[in-house]
């Protein structure tokens, strides 16, 4: 039986790692970061193993943990955390993503490595806290804390137009979260009006919100939804994404695409769906339509992209459109499928960006306008990339298939039209992903490349190890996707 200490443990370990990183010599930072994050991953899996590996959701429920720490009880400020079937997987994912991000070699280990590593661990802490939070204020604080390391990532190790990227990222996300904060205050004052007590604890507020008429929940609901729509992002709130992804250093991109976008997903599952069921029900059609349009629109943009990172950035939006489609189908099955697809997307996009970095290291750029034919020179690297591409087009037998299939299956019951529209994204996904792979890997070698591009080493054993780990997760998840659905 788990005790509540496991929660504090999971939260403090990354903080401890931040502190330790300041006394580790610069030359050892990468080793420290890799082993540290691997250790955290192992500990996270160990601490949550009761949930992760139990055969059914019912069995897993025995290991769910709720914890509430009083802070300023007069004002209802407390820190609430909940470890359940959803948050457990996201904890594991954030640790895994951190490991993948730390694994990459690059400028960040030469320029201010200490800052990089400590920011990475701090990000892990903030993410874990956000994934676990069941308290509005705790969630808000963690949600905002995630910004700090990300702004450093883009600002310190970013590419050419980092200033503009940081500005957009901050502006859009902050615009969303400030609305969310207002919505939170509204909810808290509703609680105060009903009970005379201040509380920001989700279960308390849920009790109150059940008796509040739908009309007065409309604006708070919209505030939350908008914040998450920007975070995920859904079209048309995705304007910040391309520039940030492209200008962020590769670990930053991995973090953003694999796990930061899931903050929105978790936010919807944890807060929006339970708090505003009637509001969502009312606008379900519109929400499903927005999700479906996200899928299609982003896929079309991806088809038009001529740069590897841009293309994957848009494909990320497209996949998350599917996730949101699942969540807005308003069934527990849909949410579970959404979680499954989130896990799938996190692992695949982590893998894609990871390998893309390897490609970039070898070819110098990720221009897709000319074929590079690199697969001849780097067969192992491109085999890995191909598996990632397959997972990304959700071929059956990979992790993403179960998610996408179940999402569409459940969404079909809610709206056949939106589902068919979104399913068109399956075709478009194949179009752009195959083009992506073809332009980088296939075709004649050396036509557009200086010769030295083709003589570097193929994937090193250490990198191969990481790829094998990720491929293992992708295949295992394709065979047994049920393990990810404990919500």
């Amino acid at each position, binding site marked *: 039986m788990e005790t509540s200490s496991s929660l504090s443990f999971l939260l403090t370990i990354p903080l401890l790692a931040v502190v330790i990183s300041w006394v580790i010599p610069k030359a050892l930072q990468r080793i420290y970061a890799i082993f540290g994050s691997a250790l955290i991953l192992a500990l996270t899996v160990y601490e949550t193993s009761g949930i992760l590996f139990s055969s059914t959701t019912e069995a897993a429920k025995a290991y769910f943990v709720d914890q509430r720490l009083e802070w300023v009880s007069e004002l209802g400020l407390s820190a609430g955390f909940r470890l359940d079937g959803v948050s457990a997987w996201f904890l594991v994912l954030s640790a895994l993503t951190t490991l993948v991000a730390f694994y990459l070699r690059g400028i960040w280990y030469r320029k201010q490595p200490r800052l990089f590593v400590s920011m990475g661990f701090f990000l892990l802490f903030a993410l874990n806290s956000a994934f676990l939070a069941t308290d509005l204020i705790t969630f808000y604080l963690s949600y905002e804390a995630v910004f700090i390391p990300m702004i450093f990532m883009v600002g310190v190790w970013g590419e050419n137009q980092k200033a503009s990227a940081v*500005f*957009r990222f901050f*502006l*859009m996300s902050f*615009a969303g979260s400030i609305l969310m904060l207002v919505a939170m205050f509204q909810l808290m004052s509703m609680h105060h009006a009903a009970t005379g007590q201040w509380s920001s604890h989700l279960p308390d507020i849920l009790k109150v919100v059940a008796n509040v008429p739908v009309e007065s929940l409309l604006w708070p609901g919209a505030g939350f939804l908008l914040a998450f729509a920007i975070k995920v992002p859904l*079209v*048309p709130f*995705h*304007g*910040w994404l391309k520039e940030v992804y492209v200008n962020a250093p590769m670990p930053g991109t991995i973090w953003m695409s694999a796990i930061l976008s899931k903050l929105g997903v978790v936010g919807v599952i944890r807060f929006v769906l339970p708090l505003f069921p009637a509001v969502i029900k009312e606008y379900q059609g519109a929400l499903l339509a927005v999700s479906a349009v996200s899928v299609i*629109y982003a896929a*079309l*943009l991806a*088809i*038009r992209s001529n740069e590897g990172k841009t293309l994957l950035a848009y494909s990320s939006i497209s996949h998350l459109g599917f996730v949101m489609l699942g969540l807005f189908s308003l069934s*527990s*099955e849909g949410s*579970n*499928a959404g979680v499954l697809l989130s896990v799938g997307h996190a692992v695949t996009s982590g893998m894609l960006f990871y390998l893309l970095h390897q490609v970039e290291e070898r070819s110098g750029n990720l221009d897709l306008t000319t*074929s590079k*034919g690199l*697969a*001849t020179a780097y*067969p*192992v690297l491109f*085999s890995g990339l191909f598996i990632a591409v397959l997972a990304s087009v959700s*071929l*059956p*037998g990979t992790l993403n*298939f*179960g998610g996408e*299939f*179940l999402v*569409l*299956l459940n969404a*079909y*019951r809610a709206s*056949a039209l939106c*589902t*068919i529209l979104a*399913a*068109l994204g*399956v*075709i478009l996904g*194949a*179009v752009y992903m*195959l*083009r992506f792979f*073809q332009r980088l890997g*296939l*075709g*004649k*070698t050396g036509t557009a490349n200086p010769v030295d591009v083709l003589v570097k080493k*193929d*994937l090193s054993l250490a990198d191969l190890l990481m790829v094998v780990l990720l491929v293992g997760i992708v295949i295992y998840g394709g*065979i*047994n*996707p*049920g393990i990810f*659905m404990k919500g």
Partner: protein
Amino acid sequence: MITSMILFPLAGFVINGAWSLWSARNGTRVSPRVSGSIATTAMVAAFMAAIMARAQIPATGSIEVDCFRWFSLGSLSVDFKLRLDALSSIFTLVITGVGAMIHLYSVSYMEEDEAAGKYFAYLNLFCFMMLNLVLGGTLPQVFLGWEGVGLASYLLIGFWYREEANVAAGQKAFIMNRIGDLGFLIAMFIGYKYSGSLDLTTVEKVILPAGVGTSFVLLIFLACTGKSAQLPLFTWLPDAMAGPTPVSALIHAATMVTSGVYLLARLSPVISQSATGMAVIAGIGAATALITAIIACFQRDIKKVLAYSTVSQLGFMFAACGVGAFGAGVFHVMTHAFFKALLFLAAGSVIHGLHGEQDIFKMGGLKKKLPVTFWTFTAGWAAILGLPPFSGFFSKDEILHQALVSNSGSAWLFGVLLIAAVLTAFYMTRLYRLVFFGTPRMDQAKFDHAHESPVPMALPLVLLGVLSLAGGFAGEPVHLAHPESALSTPTWVIMIVSVIAAAIGATIAFRRYSVSEVKAEPTSDVFRIDAVYSKLFGGGLGVIASASQWLEERVVQGMIRMVAAVTDLSGNMIRVLQVGSAQAYLLMMIIALVVMVFYFMKGVV
């Protein structure tokens, strides 16, 4: 036994795949002989398993093997299970049997290719996926196989990936298949919605409301048109000839492209519920048979002729399914697998013998040079023409018969198919005549160097030749629900008519191409379908994508700029207050305090 049937190819795939990856990393080469032997052994073992499994099937019914729970969510649970009955057994025998021969053939065909290990890994992967398709006990599992064979097909079409054209052909195949897969997906959703399960046994029995039933059938058929290259989506198959010839024989003639027929036959109880859907299937099948037969008459590439011929023959099968004669369709799948695989392998042998020459107008007179190939090709030729007692005769005759006499059949359908049969005889004889008879139309040196293929390649040819000759006597392999007959035209009348039709086509071709100086005909894309498609879809997609790009750059990014401008403006406004004097800040603080006290403590103070 059933499990081991699918595990053998999987093992072959894993071994060959890992080995070739490992050696690619180390810069060494995989021996084609060893890896080919591993792959072939796996397929032979699978074939044995398929034969033994066949013996275990009860007279009516099926064997089911539950492997593991794949996924479950809410009321839905999908098991990974294998289901073998008469229908799937036929397919497994064809896949593993013909597959084993083609593997054997490949060992020698691919001997000089440096990526042979990869090739055999893909080939085994294909067989594994194809077996999943036909043995799958649930729709998602069939879908797994369905997409899996598409993947293997993509990999093998673009096997020589340094040529952009090959890669493009592979992509075209994959994407067109995906369009079909969309139909499969949505059909699954409909099936689940109305039957509450994705088990084939349940979905087969489901009774759908009229309109839904039709859309279900049409969606399933959309999937079939993608995979089996039927009318709207057939253009990928001729391009798919970019792959190695044994691949064309196995995937794009004998097995994968027939999976559409399998799916229709498998779901025949549901499919038959919708008369409209059936009519569409029959119509499109017949139209495909005719149109692609016409196109085949204008091709110069030996493989392209066979490819269009395959599409045309698949059209026959779908026409059969469309009139309710699923058994006849499956029968034709089997015989077609024998003779078309044979024709492709023989063509491969010709190409191999001529060192890569594929243009039939640059061949001729090869009868003497390639005797084994010639005689086996003759068997295949006779079979596709439907000359008795070759296998094609039985199945094609059955299809023509059903097209005329069954309830949903008609004279029109029969007529179209008969014309297609005449054309089939014409283009096949044209090919046969131009390749093997007459005077050689190539360099003397090349002709002199032409050589018969080695034993590993010849052996499968002979075996398939025997099957093409005798396979028809097996009779209709499965007894699916037979359509009710409206007419009572006796079978023998049809037999005579179809043989006469074949004879007419063959005679015209023989006479036309028997002149001493054969004039080279230009290749012609008669209906310009490919060009229209690339205009329509390529162009259409381009326009939509450009539109969204415009929207993105102008509207979405404009929105961001607007937000930025507003922030800037309000920043400037607030800046006025930032006078930089601590006392002014203090004053503001107190003003704010006073206002807040006024606001919050109105009642108290």
